[in-house]
């Protein structure tokens, strides 16, 4: 008896092995996907129903005929169907399996049909119980739970056979023989089955998280590289990053004419600076689409060397602001390696990130040009008024005091030279002061005793850097919109100070007439440009500050960043 028990167990295990092999093969197909994500949508439910009903039916067919009954592994299908699909689906799967068993006949046909349906329900109840108890789906994939559920379901089946199958003696004899092997084989089988699904699921998770990490890392490293447009040295940096992160055999970046950068296998004969030669790249550029030479049906043919180790290539066009092709990103794999699907997706993503960055840099450049244009406009706007007044002053002085007139002309020449010939972005405080002083000398002579100028700037400020054309517009504003409106004497003071450890330059007048401009009108334009340039040069926290006490004073404050070498 024990021996026959054991041989029955063995043959059930054999059946189970066939099941598991089928399940394993299925797990390689998309039909398996619904089991790993458990979405409650109809196509999913249908897949689960068909899959596990199929297992039920197969279990009955594979079963061993014993005394007009069948020792089988049907329970695995029903219980797992319930576990994955819930009570309703479990019942349906069990019922399908049960009906099939019923039509196979035998004295246990009714008992088996009823019990298989109930087994599906048991699986479904477990599903419900896990869902209620915890929100975490992971427990649904526990092999232990599958084992316990099947154990309970099979025990139930044995009891039902004893209850329903007639004659009772025959049923009892059958159960004595099959109970232990069936309960054991089904429970272990269900657990193994579940283990396989769980592993499959974990593999998916791991793989997708690995590739998203890769993609994120790539994107992060590429940020800011192309902030000055599509330049060769940036292309080399990008190619290196892509090569490191994707692990493909080689990476190339081209514009529409030539190769800008090449990194990786075959770099001995692929050189940056060469004109584009591959057919695929031409196709990608001319047709504005992704071109893939998989190396099997369509081989990548290197045009410069027969011994080139590269066998497949992916060419993704980089699109400019008007969706036109401005270059390509090329990924290669060697003849010995297959092109990974994920690298294809990454390649397309990379081209998008580069295009996005180029678009950003374009916008930034436009903005900078605009600021420069505004700056030029501001200079042009200031000049005539001041210029004619200065000339008038000189013409008044020239007869009276020739040397003073000569000095004024020298000041005016210096002022104009600095004003007109400034191309560099930043200058020293000392140079800015030179500009201011040339301007102030002329104004001083113009207004005579109506204007008093004081200057007190610490020597240590002289070598600090400022955006060009920062100080003079502020001083000019202080006179034009400040002291010039005073009936009494105007006072302009330019001084340096330390405010909470921050070095500051202050232009102060005694008029206190500053009003925050509503918008960037011509009056506010000078200040606005100075403010924008300070922010651009030093950061948002170095914006121009204005303190104003009506009819008392206006202080315009420039904060300077700490020097990097201190």
């Amino acid at each position, binding site marked *: 008896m024990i021996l026959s028990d054991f041989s029955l167990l063995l043959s059930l295990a054999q059946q189970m092995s066939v099941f598991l092999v089928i399940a394993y093969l299925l797990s390689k197909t998309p039909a398996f996907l619904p089991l790993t994500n458990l979405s409650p949508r109809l196509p999913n439910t249908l897949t689960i129903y068909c899959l596990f009903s199929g297992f039920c039916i197969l279990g009955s067919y594979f079963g061993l005929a014993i005394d007009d009954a069948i020792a089988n592994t049907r329970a695995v299908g029903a219980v797992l169907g319930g576990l994955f699909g819930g009570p309703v689906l479990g019942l349906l799967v069990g019922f399908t399996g049960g009906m099939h068993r019923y039509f196979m006949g035998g004295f246990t046909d009714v008992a088996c049909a009823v019990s298989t349906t109930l087994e599906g329900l048991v699986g479904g109840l477990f599903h419900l119980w896990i869902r209620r108890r915890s929100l975490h789906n992971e427990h649904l994939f526990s092999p232990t739970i599958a084992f316990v559920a099947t154990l309970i379901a099979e025990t139930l089946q044995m009891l039902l056979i004893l209850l329903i199958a007639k004659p009772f003696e025959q049923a009892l004899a059958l159960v004595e023989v099959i109970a232990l092997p069936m309960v054991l084989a089904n429970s272990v089988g269900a657990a193994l089955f579940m283990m396989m699904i769980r592993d499959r699921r974990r593999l998916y998770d791991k793989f997708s998280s690995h590739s998203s990490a890769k993609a994120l890392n790539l994107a992060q490293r590429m940020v800011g590289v192309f902030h000055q447009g599509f330049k060769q040295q940036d292309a080399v940096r990008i190619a290196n990053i892509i090569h490191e992160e994707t692990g493909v055999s080689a990476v190339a970046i081209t514009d529409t004419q030539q190769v800008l950068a090449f990194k990786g296998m075959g770099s001995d004969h692929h050189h940056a600076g060469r004109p584009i030669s591959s057919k695929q790249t031409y196709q990608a550029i001319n047709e504005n689409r992704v071109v893939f030479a998989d190396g099997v049906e369509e081989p990548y043919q290197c045009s410069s060397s027969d011994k080139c180790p590269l066998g497949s290539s992916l060419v993704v066009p980089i699109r400019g602001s008007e969706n036109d092709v401005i270059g390509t990103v090329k990924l290669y794999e060697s003849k010995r390696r297959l092109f990974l699907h994920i690298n294809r997706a990454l390649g397309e993503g990379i081209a998008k990130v580069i295009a996005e960055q180029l678009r950003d840099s374009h916008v930034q450049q436009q903005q900078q040009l605009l600021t420069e244009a505004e700056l030029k406009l501001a200079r042009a706007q200031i000049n*005539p*008024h001041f*210029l*004619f*007044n200065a*000339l*008038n*002053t*000189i*013409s*008044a*002085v020239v*007869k009276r005091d020739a040397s003073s007139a000569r000095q004024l002309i020298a000041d005016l020449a210096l002022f104009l030279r600095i004003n007109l010939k400034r191309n560099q972005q930043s200058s020293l405080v000392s140079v800015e002061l030179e500009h201011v002083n040339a301007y102030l000398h002329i104004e001083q*002579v*113009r*207004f*005579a*005793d*109506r204007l008093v100028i004081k200057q007190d700037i610490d020597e240590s400020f002289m070598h600090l850097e400022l955006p060009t054309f920062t100080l003079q517009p502020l001083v000019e504003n202080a006179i034009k919109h400040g002291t*010039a*409106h*005073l*009936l009494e004497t105007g006072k302009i003071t330019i001084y340096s100070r330390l405010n909470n450890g921050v070095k500051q330059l202050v232009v102060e007048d005694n008029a206190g007439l500053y009003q925050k401009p509503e918008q960037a009108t011509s009056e506010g334009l000078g200040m606005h440009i100075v403010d924008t340039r300070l922010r651009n040069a030093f950061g948002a926290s170095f914006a121009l500050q204005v303190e104003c006490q009506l009819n008392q004073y206006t202080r315009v404050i420039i904060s300077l960043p700490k020097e990097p070498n201190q």
Partner: protein
Amino acid sequence: MRAIIVDDEPLAREELQEMLQSHPEIEVVAQFGNAIECLKHLKQLQAEVLFLDIEMPQISGLELANMIDSDNAPAIVFVTAYDQFALDAFEQNAVDYLLKPIDSERLCKSIKRLKERLPSIKQTEADAPANHSYQTMLKEQQLRLIPCYYQQRVKLIRLEDIEHASSDLSGVHVATENGSYHTQLTLKVLEDKSPLLRCHRQHLVNVEAISEISLEDNGGAVLFTKSGEQLPVSRRYFKAIKEHFGL
């Protein structure tokens, strides 16, 4: 011709005076550094020509021109460094403008023009077609600040702060919530170039400052201002006030 130079730059004034010395027909009787000083002495100096800078503190040359009573206004020559507005405004005008630095030949022409036109300005004030655009421009332009003299100081009163303006033997006074000040402007100028409404031969009132109107038996009325002062309303001007309030 008696001339006054108004410019906030001392060198510019001296320069112009020096250039005018070679024209014996012009006698510079005074120089002022701003419009307010000029206005203060304008009447007693009886100048016939004003050389006016445009950009000056508080009250610009254009505003000064606007404040002068057109009945016996001197001829005005603007002297400016660069001002598109001045160019536009006086393009077709008999009154001249000069650009700084002043060209001496251009100044000669200007003086010749002044000599020719000065008598005609006074004679044909009412229907001088040559001055039409300039006159309408001045008329349409509103005053912004009223320069007033208070002891030794100058106060610039904003139009909206004025409750009423009145003339008596000592001159014209503008009254605000904080007191009354003397001004050189005439009631006629104030009436023409501000929203102040005439209620009596000797009084203008800011309608915003009226708190009460008390009707009198003789068809006239008495106005009470917010600071509690009384102003008589003559029958002749009552109609306009009634109209304003829709009475």
